[in-house]
């Protein structure tokens, strides 16, 4: 009945636990599906643009309604796509923003995707007007929060082409409240014709590879694709000559944020790529400077990606975009750093992926922060420009950026070296001395050169990191320099590509100037230039940049704490037995009451055993094999736990490790020695393990009993069974214990030794053994002498050795008393024993 109740309770527990698990699963599932749902609506929005506001264009748009309670007003975000893309490219980011509670509008710009019209390159007459009408459209949405009539709370974000439109729209429309332009340009003319210096893009070097991709990538079946015909013919003329016309420069400048940065009032987060040879970091720098001059808050981020490739850091960039809008569109508190640079910090040994850390500083130092000037060594060198500009050096190529991302680890390695190529005779190199300490360059290094040309010279400047024999590009970007009217030599200041790079201790920084570069249109005429350095290399540093310690996941401290708590519970709830002391039994060597032990198999080894042994007795524990003698002795030693009843030695209850066991000497179920140690060492170390002083041990007397002779110093593993047996008995007698327990002590001994052992035991019990020992002195009141318990299955043995006997059978005591009494009327103990066992059955 009881059992059935227990079973029922157990099943109830299982059922409850199962329900809880299932319920948790369902709850989790709901929570997953219950992420705020986002509803997307497709729209075709009609806009009117053109210089005279007479061109009708249909923009293909998707509006993502903000997650949140119905009727609530949410700020809006316009997401613009990059060149050659469409609104589909921003869908994932739009969903995330909508889930975060923004009303999001994505659209395909005119000339892209399913929108009509032609590409006008973010012209104020076309694309900017379109975006202003999209802002009008957003203002009419009931979900969108308004700052005033027709003035929505709105931010714009986008990459490249979309980044430029966000800057231009903010410059032309004061209703825009925050923008996050990414990897975009400041001045398209400067970006496509760099190197002209103060003379302007008309004197720059044509970035032909990127320009070609930019203008013809979308061309389709016609040469001009969906470009405005006027733009297309302008490009074709420029690409043919490699020189921009004044009109082209004017057009490109109108399409550039450069024209409006002083009018931008929307707080701006500029995110620029470190792997970007199309719109390098100096483009963002120029935007930041212009916007800051207007008194508008601006922050700058340099991340690993860019047009050349590299780690897009999608997660980090999206978090930055959302954080910026949270702060400026939702007025959430929180300060964002003025300058953030992401750096390859190492390799995660568990995932084998590059760890990218973000270093931050309160303010953006610009590209020419204060730094150090490192002397450059190298004579004046003559370099050749090959006819036709071919073969050309290779530095940046679209898509090569990924190789640069290992840059900080210096691990561009063999692959990167193979692709970065300077043609012999075309490159002048100047090295710094090996660095005495590591230098982290953040910004654009500068150098002054003396160039002699014929009469003009076109050069491409870049930095290499030289460690040992290996020279790797610090960043795979080259800065073109055009030096005009240099027939008699001219001194020019050259600004190298901006970068964030750590040159290790012992490495050298190498300045390389080449006459050609694959990405640019250099002069076709063969020429020779002379180049010499006129100054050291000035490298800007930004010591304010610090990598905030990335917080470790919570489990790294929760797990050890939890484990410690679990461990404490495990240890504290473990079985404990209380010791107790009965003073009235102080002089009783052994009293066993009601002792019961059943093994896990269910075998009842000892069954309600009670007995008492007095001082001076030699007690025989007699019984056939399996009678429970050894189990009783093991309980006596505190090795196994009784199920019921107790054992008291001199009044102290026996528990595992009870101190009173020190008064017990035991030899149970065979010897136990360390086989690699000698008999002497075994006894010595055993006694030292008891922690008692050496003079209490009486080692000599024990050794006399062992009678091992010279064998005492041999390892125990060489001993015979009998020798081990004697050594074990000697070990039991160490310290002359008041109670000596021996289990089958004469096994393996030969007859003379057996006789000797008998005498030893009787002498021991009478107290005559070890006469000079202190054990006699503190032997206590009572009858003096010590007590010996011998278990045996041999009748003759017990009869001859013992004064008293306890007969056991099947775990029970079947008789006890002085040997003489037990023998009683029977002539011999054997007969008495057999008759007792017979009754016991």
């Amino acid at each position, binding site marked *: 009945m009881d059992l059935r109740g227990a079973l029922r309770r157990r099943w109830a527990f299982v059922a409850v636990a199962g329900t809880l698990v299932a319920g948790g699963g369902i709850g989790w599932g709901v929570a997953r599906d219950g992420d705020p749902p986002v509803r997307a609506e497709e729209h075709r929005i009609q806009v009117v643009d053109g210089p005279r506001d007479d061109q009708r264009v249909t923009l293909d748009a998707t509006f993502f309604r903000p997650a949140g309670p119905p009727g609530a007003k949410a700020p809006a975000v316009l997401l613009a796509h990059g060149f050659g893309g469409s609104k589909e490219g921003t869908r994932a980011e739009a969903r995330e923003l909508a889930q975060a509670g923004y009303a999001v509008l994505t659209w395909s710009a005119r000339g892209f995707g399913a929108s009509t019209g032609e590409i006008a390159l973010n012209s104020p007459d076309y694309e900017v007007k379109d975006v202003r009408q999209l802002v009008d459209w957003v203002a009419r949405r009931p979900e969108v929060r308004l700052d005033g009539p027709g003035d929505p709370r709105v931010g714009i974000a986008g990459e490249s082409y979309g980044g430029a439109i966000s800057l231009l729209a903010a410059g032309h429309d004061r209703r825009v409240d925050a923008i996050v332009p990414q990897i975009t340009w400041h001045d398209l003319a400067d970006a496509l014709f760099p190197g002209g210096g103060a003379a302007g893009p008309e004197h720059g070097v044509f970035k032909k590879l990127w320009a070609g991709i930019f203008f013809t990538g979308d061309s389709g079946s016609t040469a001009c694709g969906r470009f405005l015909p006027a733009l297309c013919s302008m490009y074709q003329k420029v690409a043919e000559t490699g020189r921009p016309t004044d009109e082209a420069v004017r057009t490109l400048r109108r399409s550039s944020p450069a024209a409006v940065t002083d009018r931008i009032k929307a707080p701006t987060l500029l995110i620029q790529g470190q792997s970007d040879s199309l719109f390098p970091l100096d483009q963002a720098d120029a935007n930041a400077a212009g916007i800051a001059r207007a008194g508008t808050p601006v922050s700058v981020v340099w991340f690993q990606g860019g047009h050349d490739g590299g780690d897009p850091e999608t997660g980090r960039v999206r978090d930055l975009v959302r954080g910026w809008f949270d702060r400026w569109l939702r007025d959430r508190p929180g300060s964002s750093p003025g300058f953030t640079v992401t750096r390859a910090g*190492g390799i*995660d040994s568990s995932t084998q992926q590059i760890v990218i850390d973000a270093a931050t500083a309160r303010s953006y130092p610009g590209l020419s922060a204060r730094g150090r000037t490192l002397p450059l060594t190298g004579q004046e060198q003559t370099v050749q420009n090959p006819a036709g500009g071919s073969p050309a050096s290779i530095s940046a190529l679209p898509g090569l950026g990924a190789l640069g991302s290992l840059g900080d680890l*210096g*691990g561009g390695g063999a692959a990167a070296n193979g692709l970065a190529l300077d043609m012999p005779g075309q490159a002048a190199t100047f090295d710094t001395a090996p660095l005495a300490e590591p230098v982290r360059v953040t910004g654009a290094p500068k150098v002054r050169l003396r160039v002699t040309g014929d009469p003009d010279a076109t050069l491409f400047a870049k930095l290499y990191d030289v460690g040992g024999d290996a020279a790797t590009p610090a960043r795979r970007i080259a800065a073109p320099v055009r030096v005009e009217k240099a027939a008699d030599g001219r001194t020019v200041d050259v600004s190298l590509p901006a970068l964030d790079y750590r040159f290790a201790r012992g490495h050298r920084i190498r300045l390389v100037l080449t006459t050609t570069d694959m990405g640019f249109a250099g002069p076709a005429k063969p020429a020779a230039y002379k180049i010499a350095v006129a100054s050291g290399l000035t490298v800007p540093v930004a010591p304010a940049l610090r990598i905030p310690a990335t917080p470790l996941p919570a489990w790294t401290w929760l797990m050890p704490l939890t484990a*410690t708590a679990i461990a404490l519970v495990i240890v504290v709830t473990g079985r404990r037995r209380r010791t107790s002391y009965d003073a009235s039994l102080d002089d009783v060597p052994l009293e066993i009451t009601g002792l019961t032990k059943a093994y896990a198999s269910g075998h009842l080894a000892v069954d309600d055993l009670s007995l008492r042994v007095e001082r001076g007795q030699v007690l025989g524990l007699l019984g056939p094999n399996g009678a429970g003698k050894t189990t009783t002795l093991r309980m006596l030693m505190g*090795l196994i736990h009784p199920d019921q009843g107790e054992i008291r030695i001199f009044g102290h209850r026996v528990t595992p490790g009870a101190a009173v066991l020190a008064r017990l000497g035991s030899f149970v179920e065979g010897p*136990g020695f360390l086989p690699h140690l000698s008999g002497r060492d075994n006894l010595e170390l055993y006694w030292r393990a*008891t922690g*008692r002083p050496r003079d209490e041990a009486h080692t000599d007397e024990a050794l006399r009993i062992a009678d091992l002779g010279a064998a005492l110093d041999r390892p125990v593993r060489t001993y015979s069974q009998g020798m081990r047996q004697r050594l074990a008995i000697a070990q039991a007698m160490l310290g002359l214990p008041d109670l000596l327990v021996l289990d089958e002590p004469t096994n393996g001994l030969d007859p003379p030794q057996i006789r000797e052992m008998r005498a030893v035991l009787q002498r021991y019990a009478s107290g005559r053994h070890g006469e000079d020992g202190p054990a006699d002195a503190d032997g206590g009141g009572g009858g003096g002498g010590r007590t010996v318990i011998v278990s045996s299955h041999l009748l003759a043995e017990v009869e001859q050795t013992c004064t008293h006997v306890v007969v056991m059978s099947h775990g029970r005591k079947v008789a006890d008393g002085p040997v003489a009494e037990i023998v009683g009327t029977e002539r011999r103990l054997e007969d008495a024993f057999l008759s007792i066992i017979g009754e016991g059955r």
Partner: protein
Amino acid sequence: MSYQAGRTLPLRVEAVRQFRRRRTLVAFAILLLLPWVLMAAFQVGGDPDGDGAPGLVTVATASGLNFTAFTLFVSAGFLLVVAVALFCGDTVASEANWSSLRYLLAAPVPRARLLRQKLIVALGYATAAVVTLPLMALVAGTLAFGWDDMTLPTGGTALPAGSALSRMTLMVGYALVSQLVVAALAFLLSVTTDSPLGAVGGAVGLVIVSNILDAVTALGDWRQFLPSHWMYAWMDALQPSVQWSGMAKGTAVSVSYAVVLLAVAFRRFQAKDVVS
């Protein structure tokens, strides 16, 4: 009678009992010889090829410090695991096997104290084993390849010998901590079984199973909690700037498992019927 439980089984006694065992001597002999064998291999086979991805192997002969890091790298996965499992797994089980355990307990050495003293001595020997190897490797490597700055495997940056030494200390320290889980499991098995081989093999087996599971990428982030997942995180100390997060996580995982396993070991041993 001057018995005091707090004086039983002094650490020195236990250390002597364990030290003269052939097992201990052989284990240390292997750890002391291995660096010389590796060194001889490099002397015979020549410098490793510089091709391919930069790694500890390719810069192994750059200096004595590099050789030490390489030796640690090739032995951390198995040799050190076996050494630690050996010292911690064998300690109680072998006493049970020799039957000497029951006489120690009846001496009486209180059970918790017996475990504590044995654990301290076993961990001491395991620590000595883990420290011996890199020390000998440093001696052998310096003799063969010279005392020089350490060349880091990532990108050939050189680390001054002074800071390389302190990083080496960090690596060995972490390697020890990461082996705690192996030590604790071996100890628990040692308390549970009478067979020393079973205890040592069981602990090594756990590392093998854990490594296999670690290769199953489908487990995703759960693999972080495998006991062997962070066993090589000490290599983060060889990057241009030390990466702490892996070692911090590895420490958390190893210590957590170790604490629980040891608690189970103590509880089991307290309640156990010693029948060996």
